[in-house]
């Protein structure tokens, strides 16, 4: 069941993670370099299923927090995630059995791989959203009753802090304040869980799914197959079940503004060959809702991915630019993300959208 990640598998996983980043989550490029460095030093990334964890084991997630635009400039020190991980172990007085991601979309898909290789621990093939979200409370773990805190946060200097908060939203606010003091980027371990919690509250198999998405796109490129057909076929047999082309066209307008520390905005696309046919995507770091000629065609937490029409390569929100030819691709989110409690946390209401959630399959 468990397997060692190959260099090719890492490339594929990084590209799949950018697809599931739905425009946000940060470019996994830096993260991939970090993992490659560990592999080049002879360390391995061993991925195991949640069902392979021994009963009662402690699992600690690991990720980076802050602005992806800071990560690409102030590159990681390399030991910050280990510092946070060890600080949380020490606080709990327990030794962790494995590392896991909280967010398999974007850069944070890579961080647990790096840490697992550094520590010689396995990394669990599961996360808390099967995509990317901007805030720490937006996790299936919390929705299903796991407390995000105590959490540990570390800076490049090796400074650490433990946060214990009464609810996960307040934990997010406190950690955000510390992250700003740490220069806009920090290293965290939150949502400490035991085996039973991991199995009960996580989205399973998402690292492998990322890898398979990347692999599917790569193979489509090599064989000159349609990348979107290939993706749809591949997703049909997974927990995501439905992947579908929502729109193909050209970016004709991008509007960005900053509200409450988030990049909010809209992108408008016109259909190839029919300027009257318009798709509009609203985003807050990640893509939230897509409307075609005013009619909703996909909404969070279903995934709205912007992919290069020729290659299928994912295009992040901050790279959206006039004239790009994009395919907007919708992916249905797994059932664990669609319960009323989950939707209250990270559905349309969680982002202040007036729309009611309608599953991608019903649109």
């Amino acid at each position, binding site marked *: 069941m468990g397997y060692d990640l190959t260099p090719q598998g890492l490339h594929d996983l990084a590209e799949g993670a950018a697809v599931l980043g739905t425009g946000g989550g940060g470019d996994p490029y830096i993260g991939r370099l970090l993992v490659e460095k560990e592999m080049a030093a002879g360390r391995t990334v061993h991925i195991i299923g949640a069902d392979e964890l021994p009963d009662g084991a402690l699992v600690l997630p690991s990720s980076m927090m802050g602005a992806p635009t800071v990560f690409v400039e102030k*590159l990681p020190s390399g030991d910050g995630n280990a510092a946070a991980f060890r600080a949380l172990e020490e606080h709990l007085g327990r030794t962790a059995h494995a590392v896991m991601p909280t967010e398999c979309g974007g850069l944070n898909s890579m961080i647990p791989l790096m840490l697992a290789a550094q520590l010689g621990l396995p990394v669990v093939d599961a996360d808390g959203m099967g995509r990317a979200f901007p805030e720490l409370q937006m996790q299936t773990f919390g929705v299903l009753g796991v407390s995000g805190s105590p959490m540990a946060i570390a800076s490049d200097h090796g400074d650490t802090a433990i946060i214990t908060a009464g609810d996960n939203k307040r934990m997010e606010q406190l950690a955000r304040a510390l992250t700003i003091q740490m220069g*806009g980027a920090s290293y965290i371990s939150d949502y400490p869980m035991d085996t039973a919690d991991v199995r009960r509250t996580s989205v399973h198999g998402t690292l492998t799914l990322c890898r398979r998405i990347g692999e599917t796109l790569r193979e489509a490129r090599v064989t000159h197959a349609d990348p979107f057909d290939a993706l749809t076929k591949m997703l049909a047999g997974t927990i995501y079940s439905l992947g579908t082309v929502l729109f193909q066209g050209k970016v004709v307008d991008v509007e960005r503004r900053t509200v409450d*520390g*988030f990049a909010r905005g809209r992108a408008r696309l016109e259909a190839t060959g029919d300027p009257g046919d318009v798709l509009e995507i609203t985003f807050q770091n990640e893509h939230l809702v897509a409307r075609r000629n005013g009619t909703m065609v996909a909404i969070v937490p279903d995934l709205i991915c912007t992919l290069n029409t020729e290659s299928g390569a994912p295009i992040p929100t901050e790279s959206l630019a006039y004239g790009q030819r994009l395919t907007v691709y919708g992916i249905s989110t797994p059932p664990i993300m669609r319960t009323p409690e989950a939707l209250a946390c990270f559905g349309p209401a969680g982002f202040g959208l007036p729309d009611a959630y309608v599953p991608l399959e019903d649109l």
Partner: protein
Amino acid sequence: MRIGIDVGGTHTDAVLLDPAMNVVATIKTATTADVTRGVVTALTDLLDSHNLDRGQVTAVMIGTTHFTNALVTRRRLARTGVVRLALPATAALPPTSDWPAELIAAIRPSVHLCHGGHEVDGRPISPLDPDELKRAAADLAAHDITTVAISSVFSPVTAEAELTAADLLRAELPHLRVSLSHQIGRIRLLERESATIVNACLLDLADEIVDAFTGALTAVGVRAPLFLSQNDGTLMDAEYTRRYPVRTFASGPTNSMRGAAFLADVTDAAVVDIGGTTADVGVLTGGYPRQASTDVDIAGVRTNFRMPDVVSVGLGGGSRVTLDPGLRIGPDSVGYRLTEEALVFGGGTLTATDLAVAAGLADLGDPALVSRVDRDLVRRGVAWMADRVAGLVDQMRLSAEPLPVVIVGGGSILMPPELPGVPEVRIPEHYGVANAIGAAIGQIGGEVDRLFVTGPQLTREDVLDQARAEAIELAVSAGAAPASVQVVHVDEIHVNYLPGNAVRVIVRAVGDLDLGRTPKEAPQWATT
């Protein structure tokens, strides 16, 4: 009178423009291994063709591929030191982390990770450590390294650490040549730092090439100032080129596009540059090439240079025509052997040029030699090429509104007078030397690209006004005539996840070169 020269891999083209910017003369010569001699030949032929007094030349602008080629072939690159100011941050990914092994072997960088750098909000990450920098200087000296690239985290926000470190290193090694990352690139440390290292390792070659060019001018008796084309369509002077050779990268496509805009008298159009092997398609917006938004890979190094957004396909005058399994033209090309291998020149290879001659689009070689090529094949072949180019133009279009198309380059003869879905096709006079024209009409620019934090003290409008004013000032101090300067580009990119409205603002201003002012002052020909 001004002279534009394009020094390409095979040809050196030169054009002469009068003060009213009319094309007075053009010339095409072969590029020589001896840089000076090729330019001397081109200049002499051009001036003598019109018996022109050398004193009438007011400026010479050169576009060159020398520096790009040096990196691609990994030759003539100086051994370079790299000092990064960042510890304890960034230690996981030292400089050249993502470089190909062959290029690292060619430059053999001596890498020093040091304390310093700043946070996004301008606070220091850690103070500079003079002793640490002295040790780095001693190590450079021990290895006879005379050039160094210095990078510092968030130096595009505050350059202080790079400047102080440069002073400290120069105090130890007075002859050290220094490239500072904040003067080379934008936010994204690895990419900016890589470009700075590439620049540093080209500094010796830059001296040699600039000396060769100025030597050629002297040999011909031209005393006018020399300028080189940058990749954004603006010019830099000879002294600036000695310090920033990397800015010449990809100036070729930019020059051909701007030359096309000038020759066809358009500001918004798709430009198709067809050579012997490839066709490049780019888009002009307001007279300038649209810039690529993705990272540009040069010789395997990821950089974030300002580069024109160009798509290339293997279709040119020398492209081979194949019929099995179906009709296809290119990407194989007979290249410079066109005049031996093409049917119209008595050769045995059916090329794109043969189809154009057979279709009556061009008069080249001996048309009788293609008179027996199947007429249906000729018709289908010409349509195939037109469709291919029209498809690329469509791919590059900004909006649903069709764009006029300007075709330049020696391979322009392949194109019929009309392209499917294109409202207007122009093949301007002097289409073969658009590149040299582009060099001749280069402008002077100033660019601001920085992170600002807006708030009650500093509103978004304040920030934009400040950035606009700085860009205009930079353009003027770089030599642009003040009245001609205009802001051509404004872009804001918000920094995600951070409260306090951190925003990256990019403003670019350009203007016409103020030739009257050049000799008197010695301004910094700079874009930041």
